[in-house]
Structure formats: C-alpha cells, structure tokens
C-alpha cells in the first residue's frame, strides 16, 4: 500500500523525466550520422562498417553524457522525495499507525525510488539503441554497457545519499542541498587539488578518461590505474549501507 503511495506521489515527475530523457537522447543521437555536404549539414547513411562503428562510438559518448546529467539530477530529486518528503508533509503520525514496522516504510520508499530511477535509465537507453540502429542498420555498442553501468552506479549512490540526508534532516530541501553541495565540492576540489600532492591525492587525481564528457565522471570506471578498481564496489556498498543508516535513524526517531 505504501508502495503505491510513493509511486503515485512521483508519477508526474517520472513522466516528465522520461519525456525529457527521450528528448535529450534524440538530441544527442540523431546528429551522429550528419556530414557537411557543400556547406550544409545533412544526414548521410554510413556505407561501411567502419563508418557505422564511428557513428555508434559518437552516439555512445553522447548517450553517456545525457544519461549522466539526467540520471544524477533525477536521482537527487527522487531520493529527496522519499521519507524526507513525508516528514515535510507531516505524514509520520499517520504512517506509524499502520501495522507495519518502521523499517518497512524506509525500504519501501527506497525501493520505489530506485525502481523509478531504473525506468528513467532504461527507457531513454532503449530509445538511444533504437535510434542508432535505425541510423546505421547495425549494433556496435562497444563500451555503452560499461558507461551505462557506471552512470547507474553513480546515480544510485546519489539517490541513496539524498534519500538518507532528506530523512536525517527531515526536509527534502535540506537533503537535496547537502548532496548538491557535496557533488559540487567534490568536482571543484578535483579541479583545483587534482594537480597537487597531499593525503587525499589518490582520491582527486585520476587519469582523465579519453573521449568522454561529464568532467571525468567516468574516470572511476575507465581509468587504467588498477589501484582504483575497488572504488565502484565501494560506491555500490555505500549505496546499500545508506538505507540501513536511514532505517536506524528512523527507528530511533521520537514520533
């Protein structure tokens, strides 16, 4: 029952993200087979496999960039709409009259948000694959799956962080702000500290991934520095642990 409550509360937002995601994916994938002919940009069907592979390579990069921004933004928004929003709406008093343990509400809200995030990831991805297939009559995904998994891991982490922060601060806005600030601080610190030395040098100084957008956000997944292979696993572990912390907080909350 609480699942449907969470699902219905976010359904319009989910539809908006899906429409926006599909539009952005089309914006990114449609021009991959465009060529300049007599000073005009026109669509040219690739005549060789090499040309199709090049088109797919560009399409994969564009798709990854779009998915990165779409999913991170949607993750922060959907995460903050979990139980943190229920606190803002003063629904806790009603919720805990239901014959369910408190952890049920935490995990249901978390799983619903994650399921919606998966929708936001899968449908635009399917549109990207379909568009690229129609443009090239072939499927050459290369590192598409790796980039998509990387994006999804990052998005799930941001989702869990926002979910936990919104619950901890009992405010959707505060949760969103804290995570947004942390992300900005991380990337700005990378820009400014990345070239210097220090105790956290390893955390800020990854080799830049070649041919990717999003300010090296995929470095953790594409880097040749093998010492960092554990970081994606650490991200997944953190994503799973944060709802437990949120559960602990919610169970000890004086309501």
């Amino acid at each position, binding site marked *: 029952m609480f699942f449907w409550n969470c699902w219905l509360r976010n359904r319009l937002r989910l539809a908006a993200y899906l429409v926006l995601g599909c539009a952005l994916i089309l914006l*990114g994938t449609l021009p991959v087979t465009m060529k300049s002919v007599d000073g005009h940009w026109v669509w040219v069907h690739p005549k060789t496999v090499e040309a199709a592979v090049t088109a797919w390579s560009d399409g994969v990069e564009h798709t990854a960039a779009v998915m990165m921004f779409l999913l991170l933004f949607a993750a922060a928004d959907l995460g903050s709409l979990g139980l943190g929003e229920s606190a803002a709406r003063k629904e806790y008093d009603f919720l805990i009259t239901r014959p369910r343990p408190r952890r049920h509400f935490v995990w249901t809200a978390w799983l619903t948000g994650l399921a919606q995030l998966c929708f936001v990831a899968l449908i635009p991805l399917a549109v990207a694959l379909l568009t690229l297939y129609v443009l090239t009559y072939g499927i050459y995904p290369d590192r598409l799956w790796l980039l998509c998994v990387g994006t999804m891991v990052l998005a799930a982490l941001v989702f869990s962080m926002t979910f936990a922060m919104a619950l901890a601060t009992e405010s959707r806005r505060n949760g969103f702000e804290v995570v947004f600030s942390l992300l900005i601080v991380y990337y700005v610190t990378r820009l400014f500290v990345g070239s210097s030395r220090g105790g956290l040098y390893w955390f800020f100084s990854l080799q830049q991934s070649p041919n990717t957008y999003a300010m090296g956000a995929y470095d953790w997944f594409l880097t040749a520095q093998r010492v960092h292979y554990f970081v994606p696993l650490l991200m997944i572990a953190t994503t799973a642990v944060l709802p437990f912390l949120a559960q602990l907080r919610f169970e000890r909350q004086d309501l």
Partner: protein
Amino acid sequence: MYLWKTWHDSRTRVVVYILAALSVGLLSGLEVVTWANWHTLWLTLERPIHRNNWDFYGDLTFDLLRWQVIGYGQVAALLAGLSLGASGVGREYGAGTMHFVLTRPRARTNFVFTDWMTGLTAMVIVVGALAYGVLPFLWFAHAQGPGNILMGLPSLWALGAAIFGLASFTTLVGGSAPKGLVLSVAGVLTYLFLPAALYEWWHMDTLIKAQNWTLQILSRDSYHFHWSVTVFWLAAAASFLGASLLWIKFREV
C-alpha cells in the same frame, strides 16, 4: 516584522555559508602562498643571480589568488544564489503560512522586496567572504593591491543576483522551496550545457557564442572589469524581480 522572519528562517544557512566561504578563502590563500613560496625558492636556487625572482613570486601569487577567487567565487555565487533564492516568499505557500502572511497590513509586493533585500545582502556577504579570506595573503606576498582582486567581485555579485532571482521566481511559481530549487537547478544546468551540446552535436554556434559572452567574467585571462556583462546579469536579476512582483500581485491568494 517580515524582515525579521525572513532573517530568522535563513540565518543558520547564511552563517554556515559565510563560515564556509571564509574558510575556503583562507585555506586557498594559504595553499597558494605556500606553493608559490616553494616554487620561487626553487627558481632562486636554479638561477640565483636573476633579480626578478621575487617580482615573479608576487605576480604568481596574485594570479593564483585571483583564479581562486574567480573559481570558488562562481561556486559560492551559485550555491548561495540558489539556496537563498529558494528561501524566498514562495516557500510560504509550501509551509501553509501564506494565508497568514497576507493578513498583514502590507502590500504583497512588500514581501517580495523584503525577501530580496535580505537574500541579496546575505549573498553579497557570502561571495565577498571568499575574497576577504585571500586579502591577507596578498599583503604577505607583496603582490599587487587588493583592488585588482576585488575588481572581479561586482561581476560575481551580479551573477549571484541573477541566480538568486531565478531561484526566488521559480519558488514563487512552484509554491514550495524544493520545487523552486529543482526548477532553478534545472534552469542553470540547461543554461550551462545546452549551448555546448548544440554546438558539439548539431554544429550550431549562436547559443554558445552568447553563453561565452555572458560568462567571460569567469575567464582566467580577463584582467579588466566587464561593465556590459555585469549590466546584463543585473538586468536579468531585475527581470526576475519584475516577474516575481507581477506573479505575486496577480496570483490568487
């Protein structure tokens, strides 16, 4: 009275941001001076008879500090503008207190002006705190005068005012602080990345040229005050103020 309420609602956030900005300014100043000191000492060992090493030290410190102020200043303007803007009068709808606010014997526009006055003052102090943090290091390094660093501040303030205006307006339209915050973040992201995407993918350069012109205040290579761009951002802020006044004036309740 509403002025006090606005301050009361946002004071924790403002104090945290001021302390964070001051700390970042001091830490970055310390880092720059230390790095420039070692670099110049190394240079002196390598070419000891060169007379301009310590002039170089002053210039290097000045450049690095200026970059720090611009680099961190844009982030401070963004965060302070978004966060304080989302604390605008629109949040009263989400909190269910707008009905009470409107029973006060004041014109509706008065609440918007009060919010803007409090929010913009806080934003100016937060962004300025970054520059105040690095000023002592200019003196320490015998670098160029503080006027050269402070020259970049009005542009950052104007940029922050425009972002504040956007967040304040979207909060009023959305009727809640989180909705306003999400909408304004989406607006900022679109402004930053759509022109680049259209240029890179669709080979359309009109938007990116316009974007580059408006963001030249953040360029590392510009050493003069950008009057036209500053006026542009102030005009954008004024437009959001005008739109907010119209919105609250004609909105039911």
